[in-house]
């Protein structure tokens, strides 16, 4: 019996090529999307699961408590004290490890490079399960001059992974110190939040460890292992109790120094499961931890996959039911010769399974084909070999069965119900007004329109992020990182480099982003981003002043007592006339600075961050960490040469590297640019699958109406008239879809855009373009078949009737 079903199914497919193509191609694309996204999501949720104690590992995190008692920002970082003090006093905590990010200069032959380092406690390998190739993981980090390296690093230095006992020279403060390799590890798994090439024992002085004021100095990540039966809530509570008691004295003494402000430094401690960290947006994996991911992408992708698969299934249902008029005779005969309804349902389900199997195989091939591109776009290293995972295979089989059932069950029910008397005596037509088919088409096009307009929005927003003017000129600027010991050292470098006429300007600045707070003259406190620059910073980056003057070498007092602020600062401070206002660094001997100028707001962070208050100083105590060098256009090669040779000459012991500022800015939106492509691709796929479905329906509808069209033509209808009649019904449905889709997508897009402080406005033409595009594509699809039907010779169609 199965053989017979198989045969009919196969012959049916072979005979109806358009129909088979639409169904198989649609399902294959839908399944391929779903598979890719299952791979992606699986990878996202698999982060950090490879640690054997993954379920017991937590990160110590906290939430600030404001002075008025409300809760503030959540913070994933901790300091020196949290780990050791909590674990010594809370019995549930078995072990702790602190991970601090850093850089050290490393000597490789005669070359000096900057090496990224993780400073960790010696318990690192007791907490985490990174595979170690050689060396004893439990003791390898006990000696302060030991170093643990990855296999890649070992090969780089020694040509093989056989590196135990060998020496690596690392610069400690001012001199290179030998470190002995005590262990070599495998490359960190791709789905790990902690990635390292080099581990060093954490450097903590005795004074640091005993100073209770360090409760408030947070700059690293602390992980703890709890005993398996620990109650998290009670550990949270114990941490809080212990912290409150232990930090009491420190707060009293800090208050003497900093005043009541200290009250706002208090926080509430709690644990974040290691497994939640990768997808956390509140407390992301950062500061030495990497690959933090926004679950938004998982949601968007899952949405696309679901849409595409659903639309493909709708195609299947609609086409199968629509085509059933043609198969009605077969069904009638089968019933007359003794086929029961159950047997017929089985036959049709069998057919849909058969079709799904073909689509499934195609989908697997398709996934294999797209995977490299997808990996590149989604910044992952996924492989189909992930498939050899029981759960995943089970997931795919479930997906397959669900798809086959979803697509096959309804048609099977409908088709098997036909009464043989009706079908065999050509009294048969699909009864009713086909509400189901119509609603499915509406649903399909609602989803497609939604996705297209959503894509437009996402595309436009990401485009805005990547192309919007940042408020400064980042062209032809070379950034060189260097920790200058004094401002004079920076100025010396500047003087030397400027001897080259191709170099227009050099502006030193502090490294990274600093933030602090100060008091205004009305005694209120203001938090701001804190930049240490010199007088050439604003001209180099072409950042305009809106009021007052820039720092100037002519005013010697500028470095000692003047500051610049940006517009947001002035606004936040509530100053009508900022010039001459004062800012008091009360914790720094009550030093007071006068505002001499207001800088126009510019995007000093990425556009996904709001411009905050910003203060610029030339304070000699604040170190410069980098220089911006403006060069003449088209002088790149020679200018870079000058910069490098000057650098090497002045600072032979420092690693030299440079980056173009516009490259760096562009890179910070790399993820957005890639997601833009993925989402665009998803939308194209959705509309494509919807349209092939619509095409199939229009073919069947035209076939069904051959006679009607013939009669109309005989009565004098023009080709245009007939095309209009045939296309009208479908276009009506597409229009209804748009009416449903537009408000929905408007709400969803606005909600999504709220994530971005700087965003595009949802303009009407976005919807209009999307809507017209959908209608246009649908019109082409439908009219193609309609024109063909309308051009047919009526004599022929009527005679065959």
């Amino acid at each position, binding site marked *: *019996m199965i053989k*017979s079903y198989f*045969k*009919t199914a196969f*012959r*049916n497919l072979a*005979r109806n090529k358009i129909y088979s193509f639409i169904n198989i191609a649609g399902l294959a694309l839908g399944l391929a999307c779903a598979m890719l996204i299952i791979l992606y999501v699986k990878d996202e949720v698999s982060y950090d699961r490879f640690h054997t104690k993954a379920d017991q590992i937590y990160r110590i995190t906290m939430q600030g408590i404001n002075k008025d008692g409300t809760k503030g920002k959540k913070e994933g970082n901790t300091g020196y004290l949290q780990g050791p003090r909590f674990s010594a006093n809370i019995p549930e905590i078995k072990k702790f490890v602190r991970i601090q990010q850093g850089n050290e200069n490393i000597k490789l032959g005669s070359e000096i490079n900057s090496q990224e380092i993780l400073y960790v406690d010696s318990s690192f390998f007791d907490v985490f399960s990174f595979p170690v190739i050689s060396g004893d993981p439990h003791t390898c980090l006990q000696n302060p001059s030991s170093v643990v390296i990855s296999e890649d690093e070992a090969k780089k230095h020694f040509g093989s992974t056989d590196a135990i006992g060998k020496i690596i020279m690392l610069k400690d403060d001012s001199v290179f110190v030998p470190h002995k390799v005590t262990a070599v590890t495998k490359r960190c798994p791709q789905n790990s939040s902690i990635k390292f090439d080099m581990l060093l024992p954490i450097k903590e002085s005795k004074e640091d460890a005993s100073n209770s004021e360090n409760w408030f100095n947070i700059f690293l990540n602390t992980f703890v292992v709890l005993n398996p039966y620990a109650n998290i809530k009670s550990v949270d509570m114990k941490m809080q109790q212990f912290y409150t008691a232990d930090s009491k004295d420190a707060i009293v003494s800090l208050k003497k120094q900093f005043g009541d402000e200290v009250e706002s430094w208090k926080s509430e401690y709690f644990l974040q499961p290691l497994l939640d960290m990768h997808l956390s947006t509140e407390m992301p994996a950062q500061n030495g931890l990497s690959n933090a991911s926004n679950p938004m992408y998982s949601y968007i992708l899952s949405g696309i996959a679901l849409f595409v698969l659903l639309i493909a299934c709708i195609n299947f249902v609609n086409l199968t039911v629509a085509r059933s008029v043609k198969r009605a*005779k*077969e069904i*009638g*005969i*089968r*019933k*007359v*010769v*003794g*086929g*029961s309804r159950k*047997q017929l349902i089985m036959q049709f389900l069998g057919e849909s399974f058969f079709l799904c199997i073909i689509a499934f195989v195609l989908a697997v091939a398709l996934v294999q084909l797209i995977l490299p591109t997808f990996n590149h776009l989604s910044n992952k290293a996924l492989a189909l070999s992930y498939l050899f995972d029981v759960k995943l295979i089970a997931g795919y089989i479930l997906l397959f069965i669900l798809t086959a059932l979803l697509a096959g069950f309804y048609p099977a029910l409908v088709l098997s119900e036909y*009464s*043989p*008397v009706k079908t*065999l*005596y050509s009294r048969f037509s699909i009864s009713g007004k086909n509400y189901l088919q119509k609603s499915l088409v509406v649903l399909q096009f609602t989803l497609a329109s939604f996705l297209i307009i959503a894509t437009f929005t996402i595309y436009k927003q990401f485009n805005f992020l990547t192309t919007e003017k940042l408020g400064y000129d980042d062209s032809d600027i070379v950034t060189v990182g260097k920790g200058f010991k004094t401002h004079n050292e920076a100025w010396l470098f500047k003087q030397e480099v400027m001897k080259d006429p191709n170099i227009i300007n050099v502006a030193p600045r502090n490294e990274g982003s600093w933030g602090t707070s100060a008091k205004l003259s009305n005694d209120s406190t203001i938090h701001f981003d804190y930049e240490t620059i010199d007088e050439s910073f604003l001209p180099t980056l072409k950042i305009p002043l809106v009021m007052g003057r820039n720092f100037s070498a002519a005013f010697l007092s500028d470095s000692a007592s003047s500051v610049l602020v940006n517009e947001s600062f002035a606004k936040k401070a509530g100053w009508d006339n900022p010039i001459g206002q004062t800012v008091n660094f009360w914790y720094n001997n009550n030093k007071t600075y006068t505002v001499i100028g207001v800088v126009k707001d510019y995007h000093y962070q990425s556009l996904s961050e709001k411009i905050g208050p910003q203060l610029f100083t030339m304070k000699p105590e604040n170190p410069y960490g980098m220089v911006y060098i403006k060069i003449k256009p088209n002088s790149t090669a020679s200018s870079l040469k000058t910069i490098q040779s000057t650098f090497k000459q002045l600072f032979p012991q420092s690693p030299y590297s440079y980056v173009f500022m516009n490259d760096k800015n562009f890179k910070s939106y790399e993820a957005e640019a890639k997601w833009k492509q993925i989402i665009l691709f998803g939308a194209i796929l959705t509309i494509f699958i919807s349209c092939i479905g619509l095409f199939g329906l229009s073919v069947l509808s035209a076939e069904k109406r051959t006679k009607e069209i013939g009669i109309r033509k005989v009565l004098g209808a023009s080709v245009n008239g007939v095309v209009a009649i045939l296309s009208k019904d479908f276009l009506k449905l597409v229009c209804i879809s748009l009416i449903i889709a537009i408000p929905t997508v408007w709400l969803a897009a606005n909600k999504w855009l709220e994530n971005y402080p700087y965003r595009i406005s949802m303009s009407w033409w976005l919807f209009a373009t999307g809507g017209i595009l959908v209608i246009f594509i649908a019109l082409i699809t439908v009219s193609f078949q309609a024109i063909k039907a309308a051009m047919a010779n009526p004599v022929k169609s009527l005679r065959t009737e």
Partner: protein
Amino acid sequence: MIELKGIYKWVNTGNNRTFLLKDINLSINEGEFLSIMGPSGSGKSTLLNVIGMLDEFNEGEYKFLSETVHNLKEKQRAALYKQYIGFVFQAYHLIDELTVYENIETPLIYQDIKSSERKAMVADILDRFNIVGKKDLFPTQLSGGQQQLVGIARALIASPKLLLADEPTGNLNSKQGEEIMNLFNQLNKDGVTIIQVTHSDKNAAYGSRIINLLDGRVEK
């Protein structure tokens, strides 16, 4: 074999009730060859379908081989006609996607007969109908007469007691028609009860009894 008592069948269109069958009383014995005649729309095919259990009736009693059909459940009725009844249609009604062989085999598949047995049975009937050479062709590759032969072969493959034929020669030329009627005669002699619907007096004459229908009633 068949006992129809006071069979009524109607459809409601708006407030009007149109009778398709009116008070049909008919008994047919095993081994009979009955011809049902009448003009278009007189209810011939409807009556045939009621007898064949493809269609329901609204009122009356129907006994088939001592089973009261109107009391049977859908499933039991299906089992009954699967076992005892074969159908032949004017338009042949073969499945276009299946070959001659497969078309004939289909009823056996639905009766869960083993593959080896099926092979033997189909080979036997192909031989009997002299269409062995055509067994791998598809219906569209055959002439009308040949298609009808296949249709009859399919109807007979499960050795039914009753053969129902709805204008079996309606689409055939007279020579082909004659061949089919001779075949029916032969089958009847072999013990198959036959009920045929026909327009042609000549074909009706092959039967052992003729009834005339007019407006859903049996004309006396």
